């Protein structure tokens, strides 16, 4: 190790890549209700971070604090190297925000909304018109550009909202439920746009109720529950946190089902669907040993599916405090999202 002089850096961040967003012990209450009870986050620049949580968990509140709309009651937050409390304008200059609720001017047209943003970002007339035309095109709003925004459908308003956020090329973007209310095509379009932003080095902080969306887009995911971060990690790390992986055997012949159920005592039965569930982590090795075992027991199922826990399972397990639930037992209900192999 080179014997260099230790620099006493004023930055708190460690040797990792610089954080675009970091918070320490962030707190916020409304009256008696504690919404955020000490939130610690560190989001590396250029990554996508997804914040999940049940309704009322405080996702929007977190976004509002980080984007300087409201002030926290305690703790610290830095965005783009600026403290949200002491240097809000530094933060504002670096961010773009699409809140959960529409932030367009309904009385003027979509195009006028875009030009308004361009003016507020102090773009030249020419540049403003160029950016406006380009974004309207990209968000499929050209036909509606000259109509008052209040006449737009919910999805169109959402798209205009996000287009307005992108004027001025923000380096950090907050998207509070960006795809809520979008049709599947627009949603995939949005995902594509988010991926393009990230490939340009933009940091994206998003909240979503669609766990598939977090799975698709996010480098790291945090689950907010009861004012605290219940878990944080990559999608795979989160999935490993909870049990629930299993192999599901489905029979069409009731007698074959009965004999299999008798032979395999350790399994969970679903008599109605004639299906058996064997706990499994889904690895190739374990799958082979189970198949060998089934062969030796002479069991032949009509259908075999491997179910790995998805983010929905993680979400239910981590936010189950209010609903009594035994997370150690595999669920008896039909799982709609099985991965057929």
């Amino acid at each position, binding site marked *: 190790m080179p014997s260099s002089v230790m620099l006493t850096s004023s930055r708190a961040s460690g040797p990792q890549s610089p954080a675009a967003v970091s918070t320490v012990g962030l707190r916020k209450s409304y009256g008696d209700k504690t919404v955020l009870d000490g939130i610690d986050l560190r989001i590396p620049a250029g990554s996508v971070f997804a914040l999940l949580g049940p309704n009322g968990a405080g996702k929007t509140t977190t976004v509002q604090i980080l*984007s*300087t*709309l*409201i*002030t926290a009651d305690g703790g610290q937050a830095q965005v783009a190297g600026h403290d949200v409390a002491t240097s809000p*304008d530094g933060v*504002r*200059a670096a*961010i773009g*925000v699409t*809140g959960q*609720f*529409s*932030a*367009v*001017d*309904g*009385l*003027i047209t979509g195009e*006028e*909304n875009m030009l*308004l943003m361009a*003016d*507020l*970002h*102090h773009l030249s007339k020419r540049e403003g018109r160029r950016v406006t035309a380009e974004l309207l095109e990209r968000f499929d709003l050209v036909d509606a550009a000259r109509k*008052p925004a209040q006449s737009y459908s919910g999805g169109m308003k959402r798209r205009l909202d996000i287009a*307005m956020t992108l004027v001025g090329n923000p380096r950090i973007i907050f998207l509070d439920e960006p795809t809520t209310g979008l049709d599947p095509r627009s949603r995939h379009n949005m995902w594509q746009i988010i991926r393009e932003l990230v490939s340009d080095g933009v940091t994206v902080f998003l909240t979503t109720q669609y766990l598939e969306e977090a799975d698709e887009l996010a480098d790291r995911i945090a689950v907010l529950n009861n004012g605290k971060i219940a878990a944080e990690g990559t999608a795979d790390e989160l999935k490993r946190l909870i049990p629930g992986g299993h192999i599901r055997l489905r029979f069409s012949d009731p007698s074959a089902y009965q004999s299999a159920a008798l032979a395999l005592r350790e399994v969970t039965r679903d008599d109605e669907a004639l299906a058996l569930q064997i706990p499994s982590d889904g690895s190739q090795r374990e799958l082979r040993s189970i198949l060998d075992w089934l062969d030796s027991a002479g069991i032949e199922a009509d259908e075999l599916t491997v179910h790995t826990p998805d983010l929905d399972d993680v979400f239910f397990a981590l936010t189950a405090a209010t609903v009594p639930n035994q997370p150690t037992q595999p669920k008896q209900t039909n799982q709609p999202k099985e991965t057929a192999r």
Partner: protein
Amino acid sequence: MSSPLAPARPTRISLAVRDSSTMLRRNLLHARRYPSMTLNLLLTPVMLLLLFVYIFGDVMSAGIGHGGADRSEYLAYIVPGILLLTIGGTTIGSAVSVATDMNEGIIARFRMMAIHRGSVLIGHVIGSVLQCVMSVVLVGAVAVAIGFRATHATAVDWLLAVGLLALVALALTWIAVGMGLSSPNAEAASNNALPLMVLPLLSSAFVPVHAMPGWFQPIAKYQPFTPAIETLRGLLLGTGIGDNGWLAVGWCLGLAVLGYFWSKSLFTRDPK
């Protein structure tokens, strides 16, 4: 206002000017797209003018006591008050449009942008003052059409009169903006801002203070509209101004400063 052209490196002032003029453009666009509100507010002063001149005119002028009934003399008497009442009414509209605007989602967006913080309000204020000027010109034109003449006004008097009207508009607008910001919705704003229209009715606009019941005279005398009306009357018609000039300017400056700081503190706190 100075030039809205920004120098190469924007200073705080040039940022403020630039963003405020952007916000002003936005408000003027609203007013142009939806002119009915502005026009509705003109109805009241015009109606009052016609009502007091043509229906009550003879009785009122006789009652005021310049001898016999003289409708054209009464017209001259009430026009200054009507013009200030026009400003009051127009600023009610400003309170309503501020309250409405604060419920628009885009205001939250403005709060999260690196723009001059006050520009949203300054845009409203300048827009409202311009609207007041326009309204005063229109109502003034009606007054002239039915026979009003500013008999004694010199060019300087005219200039001072316009300045006074603009100052009153500025002061009342800042108060109206505060009223709009403190109101949860448009209805509440129009109720809260009602004094801006009622106070001129309780002033020397239609009847001289000395002709009012004794217990009421202090109310009429010590309120902002009466000195402003007396000053305007003096400038246009050559009646005595006395202390009213300074009183009017004092009231306006006081109200403007009060309204400014009130509005500013309402706007800077966390949105609900």
